Structure formats: structure tokens, C-alpha cells
């Protein structure tokens, strides 16, 4: 499936080379390449970032949860210690004093005073006999004579010997906890000492946890009734609006969304000695504050990495495609050049064949006409002699013209034998111009020579170069009006090349004409030219290893510029 998608997209990259590429396709290819490279490079980064994210989060959670756990454990120990101390104090008193002494209110009050001195949180103290009647009482309320035999805790203490109550309001109308311890004497009599503890001591334990303001901590009983007030979940003795978690005696932390929608970590621990549960709520947000800073670092690295990857991918792709399009262009140009050469040579062969085939019948016409003419001239009294002589002359002239064409065609096809010698280009130009000076002066055309001094000699073919100059200057002469000018310039272009330019201020050429002038049989001289001149010229210069370019503007003139190598290319010989 992935492979299919990939191959579908890669087809452009692989198959695109077959046909020439439009800029549109380059754009698509670029987008795909950049996308592919970016995805391939960014994928590991993304995976790494995700793994890192999870690891960091786990580590951070642990780091945040552990202190919470420790704190809960400590608070639980404190709570248990607090209750154990008081229970053992009560236990000590009930065991250390005989019933008579404890039932004496004065003695009880004295003991109560000492207890209050030693331990915080005692509210009152009472002695209850086995029938459940309060025998004596020390404390702020008048509870002497009250009977507890019907109450559940009384029965429990009778069975277990010890009882610690949940928080409740009771007769006293403020939250308190009751601890009751039973003593069994050797004689089988039993009595119960009962103390009331103020729950403000619990509040102190919670306060000792010193949590942040947006956190919450409280003590519950196992039924989920609040034993201390909570910031968010109600007052003492109200039911916690959250389901109680299963009992565990280890500090436990679990994520939780409370009824108000706050995202929390709930941590709790069950006391093993009593029915109490200590619970703390900490908002996740405050928890993960540290995490956010770490994550923003991570995100920054990830994003800048991504940007970097994208930039590099883009740059590389850009470079690659530029190379590609460059070579594509070069290929195309080379192909065009080849096509042109191919065209020239095939047309050349065609022309040669044609010329040969035409030459034989032309020769017959020539000889028959010639014979006719000879015979007419020999007979003095031939009727209409002059007329017939005129006719045969016309035929001979036409044959002559055809011969000119076929010979030029053969010449075009020929240009094979190159004879290389050391030549002075300036000298050849001067020599060539001698053929044309007459026409130039007759038409008052100014031929300006601007030949470079000390122009280095080149190894080339004299006859071919002459033909080149002759062809171009002939064209220039045809293009300029009477009184115009033709200027010829030579210079040393570089160490290996000599430049020659031939400029005229003649009629110039249109763009369309410029595109065809080196093609064989393309002519603007209707009925006069063969259209081979510039084609031959171009072919010769190519064969001599040179370059021929042309610039032209309609009604402003034309400049032919050629660069001739000082040494002919290999294979020209």
C-alpha cells in the first residue's frame, strides 16, 4: 500500500526524464521531492519527540507524585500516633486507678487536669459502669448519670475492650471523637473510661501538610464522610461527592476528574489502626507547570529542527532540479544541433543525387542544342536563321543556369575536403574584397576595414574561408542601399580564437527570417538565390571548428560574428 503510493509519486521523478519537462512539472516535482525529503527526515525526529514527551511526563509525574505519597504516609503516621497516644493514656488511667478512685469526681477532675496538661485535645472525661451509666464526669458539660447502654459504641467497647469513634456531633453539638477503653478487674467487674477529643487536632495534622492553596486535603471515614472540613468538597460530616477508592494501606496516586470538572491527582491512604482515610487532591495543572517549561523547550527544538530540515530539503531539491533542468536544456540544445546537422547532411545528399541525375539529361539538351546551332550556322541560307540562333542561344543559356544550380548544389554537398594551412585572416579578407570592390564602388557602398594589428595567424582552409567571407559580404551588399556601408572587423578574442564581424546598415531581417537563415533552400531573394549560400557558410564554419552568430534588426542592419579557432578541430583534416 505504502509502496504503491510511493511508486505512484516517484514515477514523476523516475519517468520524468523521458520527455522534456515543462516548468509546471518541475514545480510539482519540486513539491513532491521537498515533501518526501522533509517527511523522511522529520519522521525520526517526530518519533523521538513523542518518546521524549512520554518519558519526561512519566518522570515528572513520578517526581510530583512521590512527595505527595511521602507526605500522606507521614500524615497517616501522625494521625495514628496521635490516636494511639491518647488511647494508651486512657488505657493507662483506666488500668492504673481503681474504680472507687475514678468514681470520685474530685479525683477524676484532678486526673483530667493532668491529662489536659500532658495531651492536647481532650474535651472531657467520664467513667461508665458496666450497666452503661455515667458514674462520674469531668468536663464542661453536665453528663453525670447519663446512660449509654443503648448506644452502639457501648456494646462494641464491651466486646472489643477498646473503641475509637468516627467524628460526630453528639450531645455536645461540635465535631468530636470519642475514645473508650474498658477495664476488667480480677474479680470480674468491668468499667469504662471514656474521653472526648476535639477534632481541631485533626485539622492541625492536615494543616501540617502545608499544601498549596488550590490543593485540598482532608480526613474521611471509610464510608466517605468527611472528618475534617474540605476546601472544595463540603463541611465536616458531609459525604464526599466522589466514590471512595478501594481500600489500600499504601499511598496511592491516581488521576481524577472531580464533579466540578477539575483535572486532579487524587492521593489517599487508609489507616490500618482506625477507620480513617487521609486524602489529598492536587490539581494536575499546577503539577505539570514544570512539565510545560520542559515541553516548550522540546517543542522549540522540534520545531526549529523541522524548519531546518525543510529548508535544507528545499535547498537541496532546488539545487538538484536546477542541475536537472540545466542538463535537460543542454540535452535539448545538443539534440537540436544534431537535428540541424542531420537535416543539413541529408538535404546535402539529396541535393547531390538530384544534381547528378539532372546533369546527364542537361548534357543531352546542351549537346543537341549545340549541334542544332552548329548546323544552322554552317548553312548560310537557313530560313529564319537569326531567330533559330536566338532560340538555341536561349536554350543554351537556360542549360547554363541549370548547370550553375546543380554545381552549387554539389558544392553544398561537397565541402568535405578541408585543406589546412597557416593563414592570415586579414589577408584573406583583403583578397576576397578584391572580387567585390568593383560592385561596391559602382554602388557607392563604403567598405570599412577595421582589421586588428598583429592578428595571430590561424590554421584553416583558405578556399573555404574565402567562400565564407564572399557569401556574407555578398549578402551584405544585397542588403545595403546604394551609399550604405559594410564594415569588417577582426580581433583576437582569446588565446585560441580569432573573431571576425561583418556589419552592414542594410534592410535587416525579422525574427522569423533570422530563425531560418542557416537552413538550406531558405531564401528571401525570390527567383535569384538557391538558398544555399548561408547554409554552406554555416556548415563550413562549423567544420572549421568555429561559431557563427547573427544579430539583426529590421531596417537597421545585420551583424554576422564568427569565431575561428586558431587550430582546427580534430577530424577536420
Amino acid at each position, binding site marked *: 500500500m505504502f509502496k504503491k503510493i510511493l511508486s505512484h509519486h516517484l514515477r514523476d521523478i523516475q519517468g520524468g526524464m523521458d520527455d522534456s519537462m515543462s516548468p509546471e512539472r518541475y514545480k510539482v516535482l519540486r513539491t513532491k521531492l521537498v515533501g518526501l525529503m522533509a517527511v523522511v527526515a522529520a519522521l525520526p525526529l517526530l518519533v523521538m519527540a513523542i518518546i521524549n514527551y512520554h518519558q519526561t511526563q512519566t518522570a515528572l509525574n513520578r517526581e510530583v507524585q512521590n512527595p505527595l505519597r511521602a507526605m500522606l504516609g507521614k500524615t497517616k503516621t501522625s494521625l495514628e500516633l496521635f490516636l494511639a497516644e491518647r488511647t494508651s493514656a486512657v488505657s493507662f488511667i483506666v488500668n492504673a486507678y481503681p474504680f472507687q478512685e475514678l468514681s470520685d469526681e474530685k479525683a477524676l477532675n484532678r486526673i483530667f487536669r493532668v491529662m489536659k496538661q500532658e495531651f492536647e485535645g481532650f474535651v472531657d472525661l467520664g467513667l461508665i459502669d458496666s450497666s452503661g451509666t455515667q458514674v462520674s464526669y469531668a468536663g464542661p458539660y453536665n453528663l453525670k448519670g447519663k446512660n449509654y447502654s443503648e448506644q452502639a459504641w457501648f456494646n462494641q467497647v464491651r466486646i472489643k475492650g477498646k473503641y475509637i469513634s468516627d467524628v460526630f456531633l453528639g450531645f455536645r453539638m461540635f465535631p468530636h471523637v470519642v475514645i473508650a477503653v474498658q477495664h476488667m478487674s480480677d474479680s470480674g467487674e468491668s468499667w469504662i473510661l471514656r474521653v472526648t477529643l476535639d477534632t481541631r487536632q485533626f485539622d492541625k495534622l492536615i494543616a501540617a501538610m502545608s499544601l498549596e492553596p488550590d490543593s485540598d486535603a482532608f480526613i474521611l471515614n471509610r464510608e466517605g464522610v468527611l472528618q475534617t472540613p474540605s476546601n472544595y468538597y463540603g463541611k465536616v460530616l458531609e459525604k464526599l461527592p466522589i466514590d471512595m477508592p478501594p481500600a489500600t494501606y499504601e499511598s496511592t496516586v491516581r488521576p481524577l476528574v472531580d464533579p466540578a470538572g477539575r483535572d486532579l491527582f487524587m492521593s489517599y491512604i487508609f489507616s490500618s489502626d482506625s477507620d480513617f482515610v487521609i486524602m489529598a487532591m492536587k490539581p494536575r495543572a499546577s503539577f505539570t507547570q514544570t512539565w510545560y517549561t520542559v515541553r516548550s523547550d522540546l517543542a522549540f527544538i522540534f520545531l526549529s529542527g523541522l524548519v531546518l530540515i525543510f529548508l535544507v530539503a528545499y535547498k537541496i531539491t532546488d539545487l538538484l532540479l536546477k542541475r536537472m533542468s540545466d542538463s535537460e536544456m543542454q540535452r535539448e540544445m545538443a539534440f537540436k544541433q544534431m537535428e540541424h546537422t542531420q537535416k543539413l547532411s541529408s538535404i546535402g545528399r539529396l541535393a547531390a543525387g538530384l544534381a547528378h541525375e539532372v*546533369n*546527364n539529361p*542537361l*548534357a*543531352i539538351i*546542351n*549537346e543537341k542544342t*549545340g549541334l542544332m546551332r552548329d548546323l544552322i550556322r554552317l548553312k548560310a541560307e537557313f530560313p529564319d536563321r537569326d531567330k533559330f540562333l536566338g532560340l538555341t542561344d536561349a536554350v543554351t543559356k537556360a542549360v547554363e543556369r541549370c548547370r550553375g544550380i546543380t554545381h552549387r548544389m554539389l558544392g553544398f554537398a*561537397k565541402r568535405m575536403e578541408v585543406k589546412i594551412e597557416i593563414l592570415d585572416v586579414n589577408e584573406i579578407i583583403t583578397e576576397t574584397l578584391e572580387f567585390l570592390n568593383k560592385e561596391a564602388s559602382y554602388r557607392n557602398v563604403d567598405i570599412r576595414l577595421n582589421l586588428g594589428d598583429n592578428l595571430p595567424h590561424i590554421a584553416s582552409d583558405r578556399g573555404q574561408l574565402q567562400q565564407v567571407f564572399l557569401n556574407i559580404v555578398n549578402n551584405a551588399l544585397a542588403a545595403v542601399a546604394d551609399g550604405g556601408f559594410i564594415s569588417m572587423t577582426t580581433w583576437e578574442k582569446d588565446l585560441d580564437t580569432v573573431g571576425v564581424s561583418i556589419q552592414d546598415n542594410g534592410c535587416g531581417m525579422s525574427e522569423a527570417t533570422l530563425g531560418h537563415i542557416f537552413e538550406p533552400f531558405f531564401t528571401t531573394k525570390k527567383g535569384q538565390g538557391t538558398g544555399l549560400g548561408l547554409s554552406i557558410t554555416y556548415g563550413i564554419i562549423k567544420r572549421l571548428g568555429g561559431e557563427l552568430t547573427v544579430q539583426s534588426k529590421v531596417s537597421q542592419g545585420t551583424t554576422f560574428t564568427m569565431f575561428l579557432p586558431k587550430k582546427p578541430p580534430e577530424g577536420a583534416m
Partner: protein
Amino acid sequence: MKKIKLLLVDDEENFVSALAERLQLRDFRPKVALNGEEGLDALEKETPDVIVLDLRMPGIDGMEVLRRVKKSHPQVQVIILTGHGTEQDREEASRIGAYEYHRKPVDIDDLVFSIKNAYRKKLEDVMVAATFAEAGDFSSADDHMLNEGLKDKVGK
């Protein structure tokens, strides 16, 4: 003046007959052969002064005829007159010893001019050959005398 003897070898009868007639009118004595074999036969029957030879012919082609002529009759001058000739043909023909090379169609005056020059060349060649023949006698005589002299010296 004695008429220059010509042999025209060309497979195009229309052409060669007209050409022969025209040359006859110009006081030459042309004979016509329509292919290479005929040409070589005619050469054996009566040696011409100048041969006007086409290159492309069925059977023995012009280049081969030229080669054989130059081998058996080096003094007979050959003018190539062809419609097909390429630059290579021209070079090869001149290397084998053709006197001149014309491309069809040819101006009759140019051809006549070439024929006359070729005839002059033939006469020159014949004369030079004769001179060399005499010189050859001299040289063999010299050799003989030299040999005799050496013999004398060795003998002593």
C-alpha cells in the same frame, strides 16, 4: 594539319552521338564507344590521341577504363566528362593520370580547348619519351664503359 583522333566513351547514346557530330564539325576525328568494353576494343584497333571518358557506365566503368588505358597506352590523354563526378572521383582520376576533369553539361568551347591542350601534352610526352629512349641508350653505353673500366682496374 593532321586531324586529332578522338575516342568518346559514354553510355548515353543521345549525348555521345551529338557530341561526336559537333566535334566532327570542329575538325576532329571522333569515334564513339557506348561502354567500357567497346572503348577498350576501339583502343586496340586504332589508338586515339585523346579519349573523352564518362565515369559511370554499366560493365567496366570509366575509372577502370582509365586505369587500363594509362597502363597500356600511357601517352594517350584522357579527359573525364561526367555528370556524377564527386570530389573523390576527381582526385582519384587525376591520381591515375587523367588529363582533365569536366562536369556535364560542358561548354563545347571549353571541351575543345581541353582536347587541344591534351593533344599538345600527348605530343610532348611522345617527344620526351623518345628523348629519354636515346638518353637511355647513352646511359647504358656509359654503364658499359664504366663496367669495362672497372674490369680493367680489377684485372690489374
